[in-house]
């Protein structure tokens, strides 16, 4: 149809914009040699002055990793990754202990400004404690004092290893074991840094916790590790956001996030992921193979994942909940946008083990350009998990006729008292909607942003306020140059 063609032309024009956060910061680096051997792991461990048990953990993981192969079940395609061609450790060179922001490398501050993350502003205005990670090592941590008054620990993973080894030892690997999957095993061997957070019994964390990750050195894989523990009756809302500079080589990113919620605890984990997606022709971009999992360990605990995924050339990510405690709750709210040649295979796993456990899955996939967007989700209800419930809703929105949307739900209900519901829809942005907006004076690009944000509203509403605004802008930016 001629009309369809026109429409696709508009969509294409509007969604062919380029990545706006591609810039590069020149900061002196302290690097490991290229490639991965036991020596590399010993180098990383020594650099970080780690105790023997942690080195052992890494080595066990590495030895296991050498015996396994990359998974091939995901609906993604990429040339083989040469794991010997990656630098596994890079840290900004430590100069000296800093007293104030004035002493921070101005170039680094400038990077933050470009990203809209001025530390000063964040400190003063938003009440968000920011642990900013530029490649691997935490550079600056704020609000530590306020947090420590409440007994909350929020620091880099490396610091936690030094200062709270018992907590790290107790929980690390308890939700994502080092043998879990290829990328998690790799991370367990070579992880560089990340964040650690512990909320003690009965404490409600008074502010949103946030970490901004940013890949910054060419050819440096990023292997963060985050460990978040909410003790009995504790509450925390944690925000994670990323942008990365424009780069030609594909960069590997294999992070692990582990969450433990003890009895009656609640953890809300929100992500805005905007790694460099590659250019219009599918060149470059981040390979994002992430393992995120939460354990509702105690009764009446709750873990809620909210994610807005707009970046990366490839996203492979399934933030999951293991509902072990009786009456525990798991939630997953996701918006995944792919444009140009991006590929996303994302979703969640809800594993119901305790009685009366509940889970909710709301997934909104948006595909444009020649991208592929898959929802992959598993709901498993164990035999003993009587009276459990799951509700899943998976919607796909297509912009244009060259992209793909796929849904792979796996449901496994092990008893007869539980209820599992699954709804799925696929729709296109209609020419009618687009024209209606344009007739009101709104240009096609803005109209698409508006319509897409409306479509994703149910999920965006779950984000903390300051993130919701950023996420809306990001959705619009990501779709610049496409529609259908």
């Amino acid at each position, binding site marked *: *149809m*001629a*009309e369809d063609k*026109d*429409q696709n032309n*508009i969509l294409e024009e509007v969604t062919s914009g380029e990545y706006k956060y591609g810039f590069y910061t020149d900061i002196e680096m302290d690097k490991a040699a290229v490639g991965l051997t036991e020596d590399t792991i010993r180098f990383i461990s020594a650099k970080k002055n780690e105790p023997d048990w942690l080195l052992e953990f890494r080595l066990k993981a590495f030895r296991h990793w050498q015996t396994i192969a990359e998974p091939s079940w995901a609906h993604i395609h990429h040339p083989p990754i040469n794991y010997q061609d990656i630098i596994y450790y890079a840290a900004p060179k430590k100069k000296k202990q800093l007293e104030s922001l004035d002493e921070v490398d101005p170039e680094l501050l400038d990077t933050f400004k470009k990203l809209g993350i001025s530390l000063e502003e964040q400190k003063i205005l938003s009440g968000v404690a920011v642990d900013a990670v530029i490649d691997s090592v935490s550079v600056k941590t704020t609000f530590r004092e306020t947090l420590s008054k409440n007994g909350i620990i929020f620091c880099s993973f490396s610091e936690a290893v030094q200062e709270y080894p018992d907590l790290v030892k107790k929980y690390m690997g308890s939700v994502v074991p080092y043998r879990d999957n290829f990328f998690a095993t790799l991370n367990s061997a070579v992880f560089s840094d990340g964040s650690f957070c512990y909320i003690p019994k009965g404490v409600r964390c008074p502010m949103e916790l946030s970490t901004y990750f940013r890949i910054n050195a060419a050819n440096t894989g990023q292997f963060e590790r985050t460990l978040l523990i909410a003790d009995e009756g504790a509450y925390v809302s944690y925000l994670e956001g990323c942008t990365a500079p424009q780069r030609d080589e594909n960069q590997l990113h294999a992070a692990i996030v582990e969450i433990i919620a003890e009895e009656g605890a609640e953890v809300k984990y929100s992500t805005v992921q905007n790694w460099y997606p590659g250019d219009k022709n599918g060149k470059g971009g981040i390979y994002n193979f992430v393992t995120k999992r939460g354990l509702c360990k105690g009764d009446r605990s709750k873990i809620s994942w909210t994610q807005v995924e707009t970046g990366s050339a490839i996203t492979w990510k399934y933030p999951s909940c293991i509902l072990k405690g009786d009456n525990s709750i798991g939630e997953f709210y996701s918006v995944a946008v792919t444009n140009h040649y991006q590929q996303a295979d994302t979703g969640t796993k809800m594993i119901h083990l305790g009685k009366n456990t509940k889970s909710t899955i709301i997934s909104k996939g948006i595909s444009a350009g020649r991208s592929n967007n898959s929802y992959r989700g598993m709901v498993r209800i164990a035999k003993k998990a009587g009276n459990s419930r799951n509700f899943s809703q998976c919607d796909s929105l297509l912009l244009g006729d060259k992209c793909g949307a796929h849904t792979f739900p796996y449901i496994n209900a092990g008893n007869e008292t539980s209820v599992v519901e699954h709804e799925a829809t696929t729709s296109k942005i*209609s*020419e*009618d*909607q687009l*024209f*209606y*907006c*344009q*007739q*009101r*004076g*709104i*240009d*096609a690009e*803005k109209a698409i942003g*508006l*319509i897409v*944000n*409306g*479509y*994703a*509203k*149910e999920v965006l509403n779950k984000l903390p306020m300051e993130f919701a605004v950023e996420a809306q802008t990001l959705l619009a930016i990501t779709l610049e140059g496409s529609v259908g």
Partner: protein
Amino acid sequence: MLLNINNLHVSINGKEILKGLNLIVNEGEVHAIMGPNGTGKSTLAAAITGRNGYEITEGEIWFKDELINDMLPNERANKGVFLSFQYPVEIPGVSMTNFMRTALNAKHEFEGLPILTGGEFLKRMEEKKQLVEIQAKLNNRSVNEGFSGGEKKKNEIFQMAMLEPRLAILDETDSGLDIDALKVVAKGVNALRSNNNGFVVITHYQRLLDFIVPDFVHVMYEGRIVKSGGKELALELEEKGYDWLK
């Protein structure tokens, strides 16, 4: 002169629908366009507003002395062309407040006027809602989602009031309306009539023209205007039907 259409030929998928249409609308005038189904009335509205897929093969559309044949729909809108849709579109998840704000900001930006503050904007929304007797809860509802037929049409007139166009095209605004809703819609339109703007009212029925009294009535048949006259022409059509004009 507000709108000057000269020898307009429009095709959809290679099929000619408008076959040499002429129409002149001046400021302060209301023109009714009547005619049987399938004669190209809605195509005319689509061509004036620049909808995709409506190809102008010959002729010109002048708006305020500017040729707009190839202009983007949003540019025409910002220059002051408004269409009240026959079938208003639902946009799930986009609140009326957000939608109108985006539209009004686009217009102000286009005109080089300052953007309204949140307070000014909401005040304006409240004012204009009165005009079409729309309930207060409109603000947070998604655009047209779950609206009744009457609410959708009132919402169109509300948007017109917000955007204050120079030329408003009402495409079958009376279809699907009960008499009470029709009166409200007509009242809204009449309140917006001025020496500064013009209206093109597309309708099948005389009924609407009892409430929105036109200065001129045109009859369309097979892609052309075949007869023009004053408001009394509408009455004649009501009585005799269209057959005598073919």
